[in-house]
């Protein structure tokens, strides 16, 4: 039985790990469904009134709104009919499309934002964006970190010096400052940009660990034995050593997914993240401060709940993966 299957067996015995795996899979499935357009396709539709409250709070808030409406007197027209009234009504109808006659809902499932968009749909769409950013950026960072770390650790000498220099330069700048600087230089908003920013700045930790692993493994007897049977450098690096350090890569990969999801939130909150035509947990949170002053808590609640659940599940899942892959740590 291979070591991978043994690790899988250990993982299956870990209840917390299994539950978090199910949650992680659910999130990924949700993100996939959203990407395919099966759910939350119409997240941008202004379905409700501005700041429509959640349905379960509906009554009292609607009454309050109705009272507010009653105090407003219709404008005095001094008996003169508006000559443009009919045309305006036509234009209004055109603008609203066919559903122009349908009035906006007073309440939504979990409330609406300033433009009356459903926050549940926004949170689902935001899950897609945040997960895509987290996974893709972590994959990019893990790829770069592994490649650089393998080369530096295996070849040593000037190759090692070069990558260590690069590592020192990247880590000498405070992380968020570096991220913001790259974001400011790229000056282009969008999901792809965020992935690039995070991936290109986030490889350093993985690099350091993988380099150390390669330093340790390259002098092991099984690598010498591979040299003795005539295996090439590339073969020794990637066919012999890499499978033996891949658990480190895997654990780092999932740790970085969590880290990058949080980083994306921070970037979007600061306005360097995804563009206005996209929604992410971060951009939802960015809208929250002004809403909270008005007592509209549902958007921040939706984004926070989704994010907390996903990040916690992913972290616990990572812990379990590490335990399963490296039983000596327990």
């Amino acid at each position: 039985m291979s070591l991978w299957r043994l690790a899988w067996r250990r993982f299956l015995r870990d209840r917390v790990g299994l539950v978090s795996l199910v949650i992680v899979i659910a999130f990924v499935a949700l993100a996939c469904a959203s990407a395919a357009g099966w759910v939350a396709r119409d997240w941008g539709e202004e379905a409700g009134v501005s700041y429509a409250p959640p349905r379960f709070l509906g009554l009292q808030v609607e009454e309050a709104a109705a009272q507010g409406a009653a105090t407003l007197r219709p404008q005095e027209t001094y008996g003169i009919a508006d000559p443009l009234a009919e045309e305006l009504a036509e234009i209004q109808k055109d603008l609203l499309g066919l559903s122009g006659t349908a009035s906006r809902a007073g309440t939504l499932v979990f409330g609406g934002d300033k433009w009356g968009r459903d926050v549940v749909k926004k949170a689902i769409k935001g899950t897609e964006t945040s997960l895509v950013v987290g996974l893709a950026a972590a994959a990019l960072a893990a790829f770069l970190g592994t490649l650089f770390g393998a080369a530096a650790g295996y070849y040593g000498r000037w190759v090692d010096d070069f990558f260590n220099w690069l590592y020192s330069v990247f880590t000498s700048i405070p992380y968020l400052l570096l991220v913001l600087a790259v974001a400011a230089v790229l000056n282009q908003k969008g999901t792809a940009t965020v992935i690039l920013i995070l991936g290109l700045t986030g490889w350093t930790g993985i690099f350091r660990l993988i380099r150390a692993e390669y330093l340790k493994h390259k002098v092991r007897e099984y690598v010498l034995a591979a040299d003795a049977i005539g295996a090439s450098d590339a073969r020794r690096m990637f066919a012999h050593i890499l499978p033996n350090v891949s658990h480190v890569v895997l654990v780092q990969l999932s740790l970085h997914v969590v880290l990058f999801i949080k980083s994306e939130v921070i970037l979007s909150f600061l306005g360097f993240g995804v563009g206005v035509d996209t929604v992410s947990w971060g951009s939802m949170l960015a809208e929250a401060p002004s809403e909270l002053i008005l007592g509209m808590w549902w958007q921040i609640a939706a984004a926070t709940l989704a994010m907390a659940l996903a990040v916690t599940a992913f972290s616990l899942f990572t812990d379990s993966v590490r335990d399963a892959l490296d039983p000596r740590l327990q």
Partner: protein
Amino acid sequence: MSLLSVRNLRVDFETREEPVHAVRAISFEIPEHSTVALVGESGSGKSVTALSILGLLPATADVRGEVLYEGRNLIKATRPELRALRGAGISMIFQEPMSSLNPVFSVGFQIGEVLRAHRGLSRREARAASLQLLEEVNLSNPRTKLDAYPHQLSGGEQQRVMIAMAIACEPKLLIADEPTSALDVTVQKQILELIAALQRRHRMSVLFITHDLSLVHIIAAHVIVMREGEIREQGDVSQVFGAPRDDYTRMLLAARPRLDAPSPARAGGEETVVFEARGLAKDFGKFKAVKGASFRVARGRTLGLVGESGSGKTTLGLLVARLHQASGGSGLLHGLDAVAVPPKVFKRAVQIVFQNPYASLNPRYSAGEILMEPMRIHGIGAGEAERRGLAAELLARVGLPSSALFKYPHEFSGGQRQRIAIARSLTLKPQLLICDEAVSALDVSIQAQLLNLLRDLQDEYAMSYLFISHDLAVVKSMADEVMVMKDGEIVEMAGAEQLYSDPKHPYTRTLLASVPQ
């Protein structure tokens, strides 16, 4: 009158799979003022037995039975009671002196700590007592060594310090768990003599744990032979060694390589030289690991290479295999300079088997993949199916079933792994096989089987061996010619029979005199 009696001791380890029965209901006595040897191969439960006496086993261990020391059952003893006993009444020394000493404290401080904790001495008194102890364990320059740190001492000196710590509080029982296994044979002899002398002088009892039967009659009066958690035989050393009653004991005694056995050396004659070294040398910075080694290996013959740790024998092996770049001299393969031979051709001709079968196989590859990789690299066999067939044939040749193809290294025992490593080198049908301590990590019974296998394979494939080992008896049982290496230099080279019967160099004589028989 016995000092310690163990009755019906059972130790089980809980694991996620099934419980491991490490010790199965054993009973024995340690009499006052005498030495008892506990002998067994790896996994026999001998160390677990020792650790259970002092309550040092991890929490996953389920210990039952009785360990009676001065009328008290130590298994039922509380933690503070045990702590008061450890070091004072019963003390212990371990196999690896380097990892048993704390590297950030001086030797004097560490010995003093024991004295302060158990005898309540002041700092000044503890220092004076430590000095006395270092003198007692015959450490040279004890006054300067008192302020030395562990890394400034040699392995033998570290073990002397550990012994000084162990006897600091005049214990009644000293448990020595493989105290000489990590040491060179010349140092081993001195440490054994020291333990024996201290035992007599302090009228202690010693429980001496070892895998090496040849040490037993040097040090012990009684012997207990363990296997798979059970006691197979116990009694006086002369009785057990002279007339063993148990089959397993008999097998162990027969399997151990002996210096007085005749050498299988074949008479010289006109031979084709497969490999010749001319002044091969290797420097690591200023340190000269190998200082110009010259020798020849003839076709179908075995050249033995013996030396203690740090003598440069492994480095020389790696130089011959061209896994290290030589800093000087040259190797000639069939008279051609090895540098001129294309690496792939050279590697097919010269293969190597390493010491540690746990480290030399890639844990992520199945045995089949391990054997098929060199064939794939060198284009042996037309297609995967044929290669798999060849791999199965080789496994059968080294004594493993073809079902082993799909198993991974961790599913094999140490001996089986070494068989796979040998099979891997055979895939290329090498002319010279370097065996670098290839059987040193294995139990004697397994060792004997593998040495037989290596002899058979040599005849079958007409291979030459460069057989590297620290064990003079093992080398004698294999080699036609033997080189002795010390501090990077080959100090003596002669035919096996001649070297063992009439050693010329003083170092060779010291080595031979140190081997326990």
